[in-house]
């Protein structure tokens, strides 16, 4: 594996020249983010991984269009989001989406009694109820730490729309989050 000090721009330039090892380093660095984003959009782990792979392959093909002066993450995640959206459209034709029994559990119960999996299920259910753009915005903001401007570039919406999406998503996740906080405090 290459040194972490090699910049993303350099890795992208090497990969664009056909260096598969450099591209492998980029995949390693961004796999967690890409997989989480695809899962946020598709809400299905298997489909999400396929979509994230599609996204990486599309990024490899279009590396020539990447501007090394800009951060690699938002550029890549934009492609992954597109790949996930494509897969979702194909899936809609194929089948009707079904909630898993765990994800369908809505009531996390009193925080003191709720275990980790119940809380996760509550979050999953709350995320499913959010519009796709809101849940994507909140995951990119609160999990991945991207700025509103970067998220706006990924989602191709105005920055104000991202702020509004994060606000509404946070409000919708208030209940499971309160339960999660209670559980964390009880854990000490």
């Amino acid at each position: 594996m290459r040194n972490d000090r090699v910049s993303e721009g350099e890795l992208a330039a090497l990969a664009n020249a056909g260096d598969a090892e450099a591209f492998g380093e980029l995949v390693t660095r961004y796999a967690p983010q890409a997989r989480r984003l695809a899962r946020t959009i598709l809400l299905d782990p298997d489909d999400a991984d396929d979509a994230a792979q599609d996204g990486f392959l599309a990024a490899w093909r279009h590396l020539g269009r990447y501007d090394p002066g800009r951060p690699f993450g938002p550029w890549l995640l934009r492609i992954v989001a597109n790949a996930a959206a494509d897969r979702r459209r194909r899936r809609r034709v194929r089948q009707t989406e079904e909630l898993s029994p765990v994800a369908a559990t809505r009531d996390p119960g009193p925080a003191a009694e709720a275990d980790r999996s119940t809380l996760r299920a509550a979050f999953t259910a709350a995320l499913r109820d959010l519009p796709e753009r809101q849940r994507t915005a909140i995951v990119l903001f609160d999990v991945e730490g991207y700025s509103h401007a970067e998220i706006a570039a990924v989602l191709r919406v105005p920055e104000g729309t991202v702020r509004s999406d994060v606000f509404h998503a946070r409000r919708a996740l208030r209940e499971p989050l309160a339960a999660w906080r209670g559980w964390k405090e009880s854990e000490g």
Partner: protein
Amino acid sequence: MMDHSPFDHTPDPILGEALRETLAVGDDSGFVWHVLERLRAAEPWWEILGDWARPGVAAALVLTAAGGFLLGRVIGPERFGLAAGEPGPAVGLEVTVLLTEGGPPDVETLLGDGSR
């Protein structure tokens, strides 16, 4: 209650942790391996042809030159209406005259039949 207001413009670490756990994706190494395998398998046909193109063109040129030479040897000059050892048609006399004369050619030379 939330410690973070929905209006906050800074990431909420607790919310981030909860969402990260909800979206847990498992081991990344297998995923990375699959991406790189698909990359290797998905090498497009034009890139494979491209790898062959340069040596292919060079080989075609060599074969064409060698074929032309052998054809010339087998058929011989008589097939082109020439006796062996006879030189081919002379280069136009008019052009030679035009190029070797000092002054500009006159109109008769240019538009006529070439005889002086």
